[in-house]
Each structure stands twice: as structure tokens, then as C-alpha cells.
């Protein structure tokens, strides 16, 4: 599925929630379901430190596609991380670079990705794009 199609799916999913707490219930569920990453991957190198919460991000490049693994110490952040991975995983670098992640705005999570929130998410999205740029450069 294209990045756009996955985003549309998520937006549709979220449109069903009647209230904020239902959304958060769902994000908590997603957060709980997200597989924990290897303790070894929770390295300083992979750490994106925010004042409010921590995020770890690792990436792999296989057969022209990027695969992310990520984690956070806060469940709701994990839930958002899960969504980001769902949208970007298994996509070619070019797609990751070119698409903007409008779903974040549309499902009402924009605040969580504001640069002043300091929860690690903005930096994580930036780093995801950087990985894609690096992999694309490798291809030449």
C-alpha cells in the first residue's frame, strides 16, 4: 500500500472515535501491541532524548525498502510511534522523502509533534527521513 493510502486508512479509523479518551485508549492499545525492540537496540546511538519522554529508533535497508524499529518509554508515544512505523515501513526511500505525514494533523496529534513538546517524536520523524535520504544516497 502507498504511504498515502495507509494514511487515509488511519484517518478513517480515527474518525470513528467519539471522544479524545477513546483515541487515547486506541493509542494505548497500539502502544502495548508494538513489539519491544531488542535491549541491544536501545543504545545511546539509537536514543532520541526528549525532556518528556525517550524514543529509540533503528532502521534497516533491505531490497530497496526501509524497515524501522522503534520504541519509547511512554505508552502513548509508543502508540504514535506504531502509527508512524505502520505508515513508513517497507517503503522505498524516495517515497519516505517525498510524502508528508498529513495524517498526524488530521487525527489531531499535531501537538504531539510540535518542536517544543520535547517528547522525541519530531526528532524521530526527522531521523526517519534522514535514514531514507542516506539509503537513497547509497543507491546513487
Amino acid at each position, binding site marked *: 500500500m502507498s504511504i498515502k493510502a495507509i494514511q487515509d486508512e488511519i484517518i478513517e479509523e480515527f474518525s470513528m472515535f467519539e471522544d479524545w479518551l477513546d483515541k487515547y485508549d486506541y493509542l494505548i492499545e497500539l502502544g502495548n501491541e508494538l513489539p519491544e525492540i531488542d535491549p541491544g537496540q536501545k543504545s545511546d546511538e539509537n536514543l532520541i532524548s526528549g525532556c518528556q519522554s525517550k524514543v529509540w529508533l533503528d532502521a534497516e535497508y533491505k531490497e530497496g525498502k526501509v524497515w524501522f524499529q522503534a520504541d519509547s518509554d*511512554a505508552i*502513548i508515544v509508543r502508540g504514535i510511534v506504531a502509527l508512524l512505523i505502520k505508515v513508513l515501513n517497507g517503503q522505498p526511500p524516495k517515497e519516505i522523502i517525498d510524502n508528508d505525514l498529513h495524517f498526524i494533523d488530521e487525527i489531531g496529534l499535531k501537538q504531539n509533534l510540535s518542536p517544543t513538546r520535547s517528547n522525541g517524536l519530531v526528532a524521530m520523524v526527522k531521523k526517519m527521513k534522514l535514514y531514507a535520504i542516506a539509503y537513497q544516497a547509497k543507491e546513487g
Partner: protein
Amino acid sequence: MNFNIEKIRDDFPILKEQVYGKPLVYLDNGATTHKPQVVIDTVKEIYEKQNSSIHRGIHYLSEKMTEDYEEARDTARKFINALSTTEIIFTHGATSAINAVAFSFGEKFVKEGDEVLISEMEHHSNIVPWQMLCERKHAHLKVIPFNDNGELDMDAYKEMLTGKTRIVAVNHASNSLGTVNPVKEITRLAHEKNIPVLIDGAQIVQHGEVDVRDIDCDFFVFSGHKVFGPTGIGVLYGKEKLLEEIPPYQGGGDMVDCVTMGKTTYNELPFKFEAGTTNYTGAIGLAKALDYVSGLGISNIVAYEQQLTEYAAEKLAAIDGLKIFGNAGKRISVFSFHLADIHPYDAGMVLDKMGIAVRTGTHCTQPVMDHYDISGTIRASMVLYNTKEEIDLLVSALERVRKMFSK
């Protein structure tokens, strides 16, 4: 007790606001407090009717503004019971006041190998300026520890006061632990060794009586926005003798008497420390806020808040899995806690959607977090306009949060 809470809440327009369609329960007063209508109207009226640059102006508006500004200084003086208005300097907040002292006092009195003594429970604003000073002067920063209840270790303190200690800087009340420190005793002990003391009063002025002459501290700072005043204004109190001895902090208009390219002589106190066009609107707004507080009666406020604090302590402690950090014998209405093993950020985000404004994180007191080896807390902080009902709302919201995350 003579404390009409309904009437008081009516004085603060923002308390009627809703967030996400729910009534606002504002428990983030440790960060900033709201403004009574009288303060808002004062600021508005200044801009509409008499705005003008103060000092040295000879025209009507400038005279009037100057008079009001100097009267505001006297109001601040009375509020903390300073001796003279020459000891009251308007700054931009507690942070800029501490920076001013760290620089000016440091330039004059701190040399290589000297020591500056702060505590483990300081706000970053009372840590970093001293770190910067110590780095510049190759001096050492020493830290008074606190015990797990959040009380300063006074024995350790006594031993840390040495011939090398140049200044002691501690808060009157902690913004993350709620502890009220024995500032009078702290000052007395330092003075025995002729060491001056700065008290960071950012978290005390909104809660109770402050008497700088009783404390006998050498410097005292607070922020206007935390005591129901406007943003961008604060107060630095300093004993006249010390303020005379130390050099000015910033250079600019109004703080000089005479400027030539070769030599500049500084204006007298308090102007020597007020460089540039001051925030006169802020100062006059702050004076209105202080008048408002005095008008309610400090003893009434203290009594009311004590009830509120006891109620909150009891109710919070009764929540399953809730752990409070900071249980000092004397405290303000500020509570830092963990709820089971829920990440504070998770809890805070959900509370927000329920209309309850708390703060999460380190509260600019990283060393306090390090003490307990935690990354942050949820903090609820109350002032005179908060109610038991709001505490009940917080408690039931916390119960709900706990359930959401235990699934």
C-alpha cells in the same frame, strides 16, 4: 475564616474557560498563575490612557507614569517588608534577577578556588547562573543534599559553610517537592561566617507572608507572573550596602549618571540596576496584583491553602499506587507524584483531555529527579483560587487514568 472563594474565583476571568468542552481545572500554578481582572484592567488602562517612557521625561504622561512606577516599587517594598525602595529593583523575572546577582556579586566577590553553595532541590534558574559563574571564575559549586522526604540536610549544610564559601543561594520553597525551607535558619548560619545569602522566593510569594528583614537574607528574588501579576516583570531585593558595593549588571539608558567614551559613572540605587526602558506596565500591574493579595489578607490565604494542602495530601495518598515525592514537614500546595508505573507524560496527556491542567517532566529540577532516580513526575500545584472540588476532580481523573493504562 474570611475567605469567599466564589467571589475570588470570579475575580479571575480565565477560570471560567472551558477546554475540550470541559471546565478548566487549572493545577499548573507552579508554572504560572492567572491574573485577576483588576490587574488586566490596569495594564489595559495604562496603554489606553497614560503610556509613556519613565524617568527624565518632563511632560505630563511621563511624570504620571514615573510616579506610578515608583509607587509600584514602594508596593513591592512593603509586600516583602524591605527597608527602602532603593533596595527594590525591577527585573524581568526571578531568572533575570538571579543572573544579575550571580554576575554582579560574582564579578566583585568570587575568585578562583572560591565556593558557591546551592542545594540539590534548586530550580535550573538557581543552578545554571551559578554554574556559569563558577566556570568563568574557576570557582566550585557545592550542593547541599536533601533527604528522601525532601528536606535539606542541615548538618551537611553547616559543614559545607567554610572559609571559601562566598555566597549561599537556596529557594524558599521548592517548585517540585513543595518543601518550605528554613530560610531564616539558613541565613543565620551563613551570617555567622559572614557569608551572604540569596533566597529564591519564586514559589513563596504567592503562598504566604514574606519578610526579608525577618529572614535577614541579603538578596531575595521573585517573579511577577507567579504571583498573579503580568509577564516579563520580577523583583530583586538586595541590601543596600551590598547593592552599592557590586557593579551593575547591564549597561544602558537610565542606569548611568554620566557617560563619556572614557569613563561612565553609574546612577544611584535602584536605577543602577535597571538598564534600558523598564517594563513599567509590568511593574504597575504587579503592584496591583500584590495589592490584590494583601487585600485578601495573607493570613486568610495561608489558612485557606493549608486546608487545601492537607485535603490534597490526604486524597492523593489514598489513591492506589500513587507515590508522592516530597513529604517535608512544612510545605506549599505543590505535589509531585507517580501513578503506579504510568509514565508521567502519558498521564498528563490524558488528564489534559479531561480538562485538568497539570505539568509533567522534570519541572526544571533535574537534580531532584536524579535524587530519586526518576525521569519526571506529574505535578499538581494549587494557589488561593483552587478548591477542594478541583482536587476531587483531579483524584477521580487519576483513578480513571490508572484504569486506562492497566488494561
